[in-house]
């Protein structure tokens, strides 16, 4: 097979004062025609920098200081900007993580695709449109003629990513660089996009450099894998070699850290419920006026469920399924339209502002974004004590408890006097957990609490939660879009779709014998599901 791209000893220098001298140090790789090379690594591993260097999109201050990237006999890195621009788009194309920001919001999809031809001065206007239409059809967008006339905001996330791929394919590139193209998408959509990329690869014979942090995705599509850690390629080989027989400890750690869907043993629980939700409804109305009907979205539609003391209930669903609204209703950041939220006998949904403030400690929340959930101007100690002090606990007691909690979540009491910016994402999430625990709640709602973290950090935080569950008898409503994560921690799983509770049951039942079609679809769409299942059977054998 012909080699499309060969990178030799590529080094990218970071500006002085960065945490390490090189973003990428001496990386070599080869991509052949029709081959998919997955570049895997956690955030900060330099995987995106490699792609940006190829496209000449490095941020200011970051420079290539060694190595070559040979594409079609010439070194891309030493080409002058004008030459490189000709290459970009026409022979090397790139798709990005966030298709909304990568598309021009003011241009129709059809125009954006034809513009690619126009930029390279190809074809007449009518010919351009014809080709754009055939591309839109090729990437499997429904109703191509209508999509051509649509603006980006009218498409869903998956459709936008398809439109991006259509643009990337316009000039029949020999190499496609995909930078985390499915990370922002739901599992079912992700599965479709991965299928599309696989299909296009075989039909067009392009080489694909696929950057991802998810080994599930790797198992799904990779021919070859290169694992990066802190700018160094620690392991490379064929997908089978790396996945089945990882050599480097870092790779092994990453693989171990992935939630494989190995199911936890069912535990015995006392039957007393901590939380009972009865007939909960929340409808959002937007727009509307004198002459127009308001648009109604049933975010939570008649949901009833209960969580027993010491139980972890996973709430799983795709974006827009209403799982976050449900979580926010349970802590009453959102007031439901109807229904009851019973915690220890009190209906939180019916309390007045004043009564609510006194009962706030019963249910606490751990938030998704570790960077937004701590006030940047407050020391950790203040974040942990504000709640208990407001509940009437004497300040010295609250401070002593806060330090103790910081020990429990594995940060050490001395960290209390620092500011949030001194901590990494995983550490901040631990602080978030400590903050929730400081209120001595009966139930913790964790809203996508590990979704923003790298896999290895994710595994540590999950370990912490598991440990706390057994040590403190914690009850958790664990909201996640990732079934693999849910399987690791939860006793039972509830699946939501469009505001309705589709199915609820023990983890084993949901994973091994799902009753509803939607649950089956979700399970099938999990990247690397087959590979994980294989592992599981091997694990049992």
């Amino acid at each position, binding site marked *: 097979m012909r080699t499309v791209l060969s990178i030799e000893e590529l080094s990218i220098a970071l500006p002085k004062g960065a945490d390490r001298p090189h973003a990428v140090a001496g990386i070599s790789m080869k991509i052949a025609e029709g081959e998919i090379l997955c570049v895997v690594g956690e955030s900060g591993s330099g995987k995106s920098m490699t792609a940006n260097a190829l496209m000449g999109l490095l941020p200011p201050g970051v420079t290539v200081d060694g190595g070559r990237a040979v594409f079609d006999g010439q070194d891309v890195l030493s080409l002058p900007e004008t030459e490189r621009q000709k290459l970009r788009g026409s022979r090397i194309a790139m798709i990005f993580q966030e298709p909304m920001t990568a598309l021009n919001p003011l241009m129709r999809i059809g125009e954006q695709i034809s513009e690619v031809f126009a930029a390279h001065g190809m074809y007449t206007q009518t010919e351009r449109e014809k080709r754009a239409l055939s591309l839109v059809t090729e990437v499997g967008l429904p109703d191509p003629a209508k999509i051509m006339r649509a603006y980006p905001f009218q498409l869903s996330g998956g459709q936008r990513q398809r439109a991006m791929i259509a643009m990337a394919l316009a000039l029949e590139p020999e190499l496609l660089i995909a930078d985390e193209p499915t990370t922002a998408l739901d599992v079912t959509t992700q599965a479709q996009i991965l299928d599309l990329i696989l299909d296009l690869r075989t039909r067009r014979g392009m080489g694909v450099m696929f950057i991802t942090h998810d080994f599930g995705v790797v198992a799904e599509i990779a021919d070859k894998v290169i694992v990066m850690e802190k700018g160094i390629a620690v392991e490379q080989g064929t997908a089978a070699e790396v996945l089945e027989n990882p050599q480097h400890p870092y790779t092994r750690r990453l693989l171990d850290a992935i939630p494989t869907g190995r199911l936890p043993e069912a535990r015995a629980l006392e039957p007393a419920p901590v939380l009972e939700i009865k007939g909960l409804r929340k409808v959002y109305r937007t727009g509307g006026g004198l002459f127009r009907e308001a648009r109604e979205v049933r975010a939570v539609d008649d949901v009833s469920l209960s969580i027993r003391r010491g139980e972890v209930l996973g709430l799983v669903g795709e974006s827009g399924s209403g799982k976050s609204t449900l979580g926010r209703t349970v802590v009453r950041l959102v007031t439901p339209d109807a229904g009851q939220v019973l915690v220890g006998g009190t209906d939180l949904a019916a309390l007045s502002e004043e009564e609510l403030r006194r009962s706030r400690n019963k249910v606490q929340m751990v938030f998704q974004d570790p960077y937004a959930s701590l006030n940047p101007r407050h020391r950790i100690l203040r974040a942990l004590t504000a709640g208990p002090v407001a509940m009437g606990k004497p300040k010295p007691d609250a401070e002593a408890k806060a330090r103790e909690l910081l020990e429990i979540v594995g940060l050490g009491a001395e960290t209390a006097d620092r500011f949030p910016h001194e901590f990494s994402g995983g550490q901040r999430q631990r602080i978030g957990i400590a*903050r929730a625990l400081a209120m001595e709640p009966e139930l913790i709602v964790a809203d996508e609490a590990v979704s923003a973290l790298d896999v290895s950090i994710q595994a540590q935080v999950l370990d912490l939660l598991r440990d706390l569950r057994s040590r403190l008898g914690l009850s958790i409503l664990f909201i996640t879009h990732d079934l693999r994560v849910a399987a690791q921690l939860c006793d039972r799983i509830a699946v939501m779709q469009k505001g309705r509770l589709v199915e609820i049951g023990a983890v084993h039942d949901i994973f091994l014998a799902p009753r509803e079609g939607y649950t089956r679809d979700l399970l099938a769409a999990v990247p690397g599901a087959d590979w994980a299942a294989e592992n599981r059977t091997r694990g049992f054998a």
Partner: protein
Amino acid sequence: MIRRFASNKGAVIGVLILLIVIGLALSADLLFPRGPWAMVQRPFLVPFTMDGFPLGTDTLGRDVAAGLVHGARVSLLVGLVSTIVALAIGVPLGAVAGFYGGWADEGAMRFTEFFQTIPNFALAIVLVAILEPTLTSITSAIAIVSWPPVARLVRAEVMAVKRREYVDAARLAGLSNFRILTGEVLPNTVSPIIVMASLMVATAILLESSLSFLGLGDPNAMSWGYMIGAARTVIRSAWWLSFFPGVAILVTVLALNLIGEGLNDALNPHLSRKGTA
């Protein structure tokens, strides 16, 4: 942050100029103990012709340099105090509007618009004319016309910050709305307010000068605007009478603008045009 501010040359120059102006204003009584109103030489003395009167004298034989230095006091004082008053009105109003939303927001914003629909300067003239021109009335008039943009800015900032997750967390901690607003939200809106305030001092100085120019200044306080206004009838024969106060206004306002921009870059590093990487 101080390092980032210091790396901006314009801002450092601005600070230096402002420090000089402040220094002159503070030592006005030492430098010119006889005050700005004393007639000390023959009228229309051309600058740089007599020792001790480097900037010449005006139509009544008063020292222009003394006027400038004493005028600096009035300009800085009016600029600073009116800005503080404007912040004192605008920040709470904007914060309440942004934080509580709904009717509080509607009411506060319609009230703000009421002030915004009347041209600033016209309103200031009317207020000063009604209240009699004294330093207090001028300062309050300037404050009254300049708080609406503050209220708008604070409202927008508060609306953005109150959606952050740490505000939700504070709500879950059972903190009262007032404590969330003052403890969690407002401290995180401070940087743009500081930047705006530095620019407002500059506008206030300009407004005060314009009022004095029109003869609506405090008759007992020498100010730059008054000096220019008094000299406009003789501008063709005695250019220096309006030129030096004009330069003083220009330089001070420029200094404040430079500082404002430097603060903006230092406090919002993400928006700074230079790559920090």
